[in-house]
Structures are given as C-alpha cells and as structure tokens.
C-alpha cells in the first residue's frame, strides 16, 4: 500500500485551519514529510497515528512552537506564518496539552487569565472583572467549583476543566486536545464528551488526538491518519470502520530489515509473580528465558516503564515475588537489582542515563568500580581497559574515551549507557525504548546488537512503542493496558493489528474486516 492511494475527501465548508505540504526536519529525523491536515468549524477531527507518527510535532507547529521547514498553513484560506507561540494564539488556535501547564498556588481565575488578565485603567489587574469573566466561562463548561478555588485543591479532572476554560478565554476558534482523557476516570470522560459537544455547537474546530478507538468513533466527525511523519489519508468517520483505521495506521511497507535470529531459548532466568503497585500497575506475572527477547508493548501510560522501575528496585511494589534462576530475590534498590544480574537502560537518556560532565570511560565504569579497584583505589588503566573493551563491542564512535559524554550524539550516548551495563555482566537487560529518538543507522546497530546479546545467552526485556520493532525483534510480546497485562502474543498471533487491538482495548475481532 502506498501512502497516497486513499482519496482526499473535501467537504463543502472551508476549513478554519488548513495545513498543506508541511515538512519539519530535525537533525537526524524527518518528523513530518509533506503532511496535510484540515480542521473544519463545528467538527471534531481525530488525528490518528502510532507513537512517532508526527502528531506532537503537528501540534507544536499549529501552536507556533516549531516553525515548519516547508509547506503552508492557511487560516480561512489565507496563508499565514507563525513565528512565535503568540501568533498562533492571536489566530485563535489554542491547545490543551497532555500535561496541563497550570499553577498550583494560584486561584482558578488567575490560572485562566494569567498572561491576558483584564486590566483597570491604571494598568493593574482588574480582579473583579477577571472573576466575573471566569465565572461566566466556568458556567459555560459546567465546572462545579468557584473561580476563587486554589488550583491545588482541585482533582485532575477539574484541573482539566480549568485548562479548557483557559483555552476558551482567549476566544479560541480552534481547540487542540492532546490525549485529553489519558488521566480521567470513566465518568469524567463522559463529562468531557459533553463539553466537546458544547464546543462543537459553538462552531469551534477541534483537533482531537487519542489512541483510544472507542473515543475516536464516539466523538470525532473526521479523521486524519499519519504514519512515520507522512500523511496516509483522511475522511469522514462515518465512512470508515475500526479495522480499516487500524490498517491505515499500522500498515507499512517493510522499510527496515531486522536481524535474523536463531531462536535459541534456554531455561528460565527470571520469573515475576503478582507484582502489584497501589497506583501504577497490578497483577504482573511473566517469565523470561535465557537468550530470549521479550517485548513489552502498550500505549504511553500503560504502566510499562513504571513496572520496569519497580522490577529494578527504583520504586517499591506493594506485593509480588521475583525469582532469579529459581531463587527468590528481594530487590529493594537498583544496587540489589544489579547485584542479581538485572540491569535497566532507561528511556530518558538525558535525565536517567549518561552522566553529562563525566568522561565516557567514567560513565562506562561507574557501576563496575569494584572491579576496577585494587585495595579501595581505582586503577585508571583497568578502567580504560574495561571501557575500551565494551565500547569496542558496541562500536562506539568517539574521538577519545576521556572525552565528555555530552559531546556524543544521541545514538552514541545510548551505546555508552548500554556499555556501562554490559560491563557489569548481567543476566537480564531491560531496554526501555532503546531506539527512541535515534537515527535509522544507529537503530539498526542497536537491533543488531540486541540480537547478538540474546545469542550470547543474555535475556532481554525490550519496552517499545514501535510496532515494527516489537514484531521484528521479540520472541514473545506482552501487551500492557491500564497497568495490567492485556495479552501475551507469540507466533502467528503477533501482528500489528493484534498489538493495537489489545493495547487500545478494542474487543471485537477486526481480522476479517481488515483483509
């Protein structure tokens, strides 16, 4: 299937906002490649795509945070360029973000009007007018709290309402909702739907970004599908089935080759039974065998990283047992986990991975300092030897090992972090989004290397949100949804459609329809 076979359906109305041939390139990746997106007054357009499809970049371009490299944005048919976030706000485009940016210590009214509060003729903030306007807005969206309430005292759902009120306070014509239901309960989601209907009836154009298919089919009027930064198709929701949408979302030409692997799987190394956490995950049980690559797939926020952090001893599960080579091990700290041969390469390299400021070799030897010490004193020669050995195994490209790790590219920093852990000679390595944000060449190298590790008898847990990677690399895949294991897939069951269905919670089978 090529990308442009689906017809572009043009409704009769002029779009409020129209993005045409928009391209955005970052140093290593093309985030958006000539995409288009039209938003119509009084309609909800769902933007659908996997993680990495370019949805967030699109939102950032629409709100003026990124400036596109090419293409045209039209408002009511007139070309316009946003050079600052304010330009987008002035054009009536406003976004309610995944993590709402609000101020806990201020009142609801102050949060709504911060930055554009009504002024008295002396230039001071007109508090009376601000609260009057805030009360009116809160009334419109049916918010059950006063404009004087401190934001800190509100729950997540009500904070969301404040964010929506803030969005409306700038007289928005276009409202972007980026995963608005991610943190809401069932009842709160229903209330949000009502609010979206109200906004629609006021003639506002709504861009709705969600991974949840039931939501999309419930409230969207139109859809636009992106895949790998490219436009795939758009049209009316009424004209498409869930199965067709899933196929548009995941169907792809095989543009990446995954390493051939002898599936040489040995005895059980790790067994996790009944890991529970009060708020993040529940009832996680699985086993992992020597030389196996176990994929963990799920939507963002499904609890995969949270579970891995508990397994690695960063957070404490409320109950659960972990066996390594058959023996029960208590893991209370990362040091315990490393001591039991479990290591974790986190997703956020900047925050959790490499220590910028320490040279490469010191980053690599950091967890292995016991090995490179004699009588309590570090031996520089031993450190260099260990660092050289593992940086060569990973084909690390660096001018010198005493160079600052901060000067390396993302892919090479990732290699430093992996080298650091391999130097401890672990049994189980957890790779959290190992190829996120690195270029295609480095990605292939990481995949190659992962296969090599498994062939050498290391057990790999790979947390990934990229469907091709999950399918291409894993022997077995565990799909998590809302903090629980939704499915364990292996062999013929392991298809893009099944992964998406289990991750998004689509219950009915789409197999027949997808064909």
């Amino acid at each position, binding site marked *: 299937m090529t990308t442009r076979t689906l017809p572009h359906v043009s409704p009769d109305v002029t779009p409020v906002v129209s993005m045409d041939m928009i391209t955005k390139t970052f*140093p290593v990746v093309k985030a958006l490649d000539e995409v288009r997106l039209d938003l119509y007054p009084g309609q909800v357009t769902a933007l659908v795509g996997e993680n990495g499809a370019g949805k967030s970049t699109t939102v950032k371009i629409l709100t003026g945070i990124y400036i*596109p*490299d090419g293409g045209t944005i039209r408002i009511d048919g007139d070309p316009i360029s946003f050079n600052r976030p304010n330009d987008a706000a002035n054009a009536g485009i406003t976004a309610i973000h995944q993590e709402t940016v609000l101020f806990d210590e201020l009142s609801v009214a102050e949060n709504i009007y911060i930055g554009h509060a009504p002024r008295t003729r002396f230039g001071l903030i007109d508090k009376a007018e601000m609260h009057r306007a805030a009360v009116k807005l809160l009334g419109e969206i049916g918010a059950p709290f006063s404009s004087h309430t401190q934001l800190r005292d509100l729950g997540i759902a009500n904070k969301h309402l404040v964010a929506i009120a803030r969005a409306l306070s700038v007289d928005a014509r276009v409202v972007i909702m980026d995963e608005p239901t991610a943190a809401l309960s069932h009842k709160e989601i229903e209330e949000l739907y009502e609010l979206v209907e109200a906004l629609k009836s006021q003639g506002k154009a709504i861009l709705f970004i969600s991974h949840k298919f039931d939501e999309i089919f419930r409230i969207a009027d139109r859809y636009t599908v992106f895949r790998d930064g490219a436009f795939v198709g758009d049209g009316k929701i009424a004209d498409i089935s869930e199965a067709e949408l899933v196929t548009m979302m995941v169907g792809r030409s095989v543009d990446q080759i995954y390493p051939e692997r002898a599936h040489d799987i040995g005895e059980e190394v790790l067994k996790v039974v009944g890991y529970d956490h009060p708020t993040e995950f529940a009832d996680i049980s699985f086993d992992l065998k020597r030389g196996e690559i176990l994929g963990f797939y799920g939507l963002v926020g499904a609890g995969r990283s949270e579970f891995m952090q508990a397994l690695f001893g960063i957070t404490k599960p409320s109950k659960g047992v972990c066996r390594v080579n058959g023996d029960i091990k208590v893991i209370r700290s990362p040091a315990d986990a490393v001591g039991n041969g479990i290591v974790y390469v986190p997703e956020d390299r900047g925050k959790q991975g490499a220590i910028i*400021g320490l040279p490469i070799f*010191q980053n690599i030897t950091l967890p292995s300092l016991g090995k490179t010490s004699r009588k309590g004193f*570090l031996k520089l020669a031993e450190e260099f030897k260990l660092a050289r050995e593992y940086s060569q195994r990973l084909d690390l490209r660096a001018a010198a090992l005493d160079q*600052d790790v*901060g*000067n390396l590219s993302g892919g090479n920093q990732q290699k430093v972090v992996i080298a*650091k852990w391999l130097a401890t000679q672990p049994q189980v390595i957890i790779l959290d989004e190992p190829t996120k944000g690195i270029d295609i060449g480095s990605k292939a190298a990481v995949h190659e290397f992962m296969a090599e590790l498994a062939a050498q008898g290391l057990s790999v847990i790979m947390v990934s949100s990229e469907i091709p990677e999950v399918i291409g690399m894993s022997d077995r895949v565990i799909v998590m949804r809302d903090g629980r294991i939704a499915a364990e897939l292996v062999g013929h069951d392991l298809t893009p459609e099944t992964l998406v269905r289990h991750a998004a919670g689509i219950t009915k089978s789409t197999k027949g329809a997808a064909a």
Partner: protein
Amino acid sequence: MTRLIPIREAILAGVILLLLILISSRFSGFVAPSNLANVFNDTAPLIILALGQMVVILTRCIDLSVAANLALTGMAVAMINVAMPGLPILVIIAIAILLGAIMGAINGVLVWKLAIPPIVVTLGTMTIFRGIIFLMSDGKWVNSHEMSPAFTGFPRTVLLGLPVLSWIAILCVIVFGVMMSRTQFGRSIFAVGGNPQAAVYTGINVGKTQFWAFVVSGALAGLTGYLWVARYAVAYVDIAGGFELEVVAACVIGGISIAGGIGSVGGAVLGALFLGVVKNALPVVNISPFWQLAISGSAILIAVAFNARAGRTKGRIILKSAETIQ
C-alpha cells in the same frame, strides 16, 4: 570535565600570579618566600574547610554550618584541655574530628532521611551549634593562659620550614586529591551531583552519598576547630563568625559549580588562595579593608559569570536555526 577544568584552574592561577606581581610592584617584601609561607599558613584553615565544602557542593548541597561547627568543636576541645591538660594532642585532634563528623552527620541525616533542603538544614544547625557553645561556656571565653602550652603550640611547631598548620592543609589537599580521583566515593560524588537521577539508576544511593559528604565536611570543620582555637589561643562563642560564607566563596571562585557535579580539588585550593592573597596583601599596600570585601565579591561574580559562559558553549544544538517561511 577533562579539558575544561585545567583551563579554568590555569586561568585562576594566572590571576593569582598577576595579583602577586602587582602587589610586589608596590611592596616587594610581600613576595619574599617567608611572607608567602605566612600567607599560606594564614589561608590554611580556609583551604581545609573549602575542601569539605567542595565535596558537599559537588553533591548539589551546601553546608552553612561549617563555621559554627568549627567554633563548637574549638570550644569543646579548649574546655577539655582546661579540664584535662595532660591529654595528648593526638587524642584532642581525634576528638575534634569525631565531634565535627557527628555534627556533619546530623546535617547529613536531616538531608538524607527527612529530605529537608540542605540550605535550610545547615542554616538551622548553624544557629543551634552557636547556641550550644553559649550553653556550654556560659558565654565565657577560654583564654590562652588556661590552655596547655602543648595545646596551643602544636599548630605553630615548625617542621621543615613550615608550621604544622600548613602541613596539615597540604596533607588534606593530597588526601582529597586522591579521594576525589581514585576512589569509588569520589566518583560517586561527581555522579550524584552531575546527574542524580542517572546515579540512582546506576545503583548509587544519592542520599547516602550526600550524607557522607556532610560527614566529611563536618570532620574537616572539627579538625579546623582545634587548629583555629589553638592558633589564636582563644575560644569564645563568636569565633569564625561568618566564615562559612568565605568558605563557599572560595569554592565558587575556584570553579566549583553551585549546581553540583563540576569542580576539582585544585580549584577549591586556588579559590581559597586567591582570597588569602587578597586578604593579606591589601593592608600592606594601604588599601582599605572595605576594598577587600568589594574585591572578593567581584571575584565571585566574575567567576560565576565565567563558569556560566563556559558551561553554555557545551550545550548541543537540538533545534535547527529557525527558518522563517515566507
């Protein structure tokens, strides 16, 4: 870290050298070896304390209680000496280090277990320690005639041309140089300050490392407490009042990043020496002591501005330069 700091240290050393040349043009006697040795000896307490403060600052904390710790330990050992004049000096020193370390451990526990911000913890303990000195001594002084000659004489004993006080500072510099570059503890200090979250993921206990940093700083403050009281042969509530700020200043001038993770033993020592030279030179060249404060303050600002600039160029460029679409 590898290339940047030697450059920064070289610049600071150059500035100190320039300062000495300028001073010698007005008063050549200042650069005579014997006078330089005096200046060094006078700066020794600051050097010792700056080493401890450096360790604490590297772990993203700060220890404002060092001067109060010094004063409390100094008073305690002075009173012990008065009560037991026969106690050997090495025992006195051991008591001083232990007492200081305990006070450092109190700071460390509060930071580690109760997660109170270090500046608040040490501001509190600073006041408490001063209060305890008053309770212990009833506000009275311990004067030189009450102390034993061995007690007051030890730091001034000349060995190989330098007083013991200077030798202790040199010894501390060597020990810390080895500790920071050649031990796991030293490496953990840099890791914790450089990226605490990554340090956690590497199996380093951040809180525990910070605890030990405070213990080290406290132990050095205790040691300095004895040396100070013995050298000046007097102990009272307010000794070394405000000295903690001079210690922090030495670290900052020496290029130790207040945000943690960046710094070196050489930097801390040079920072202390810079302040020592300024303090000792200005009176001899007839510059008002008020200028000394202005110069120290300016040095801090210049050092911080310089370090901020040096840090900025290291950042990677993530976004392509914004091209406007027209």
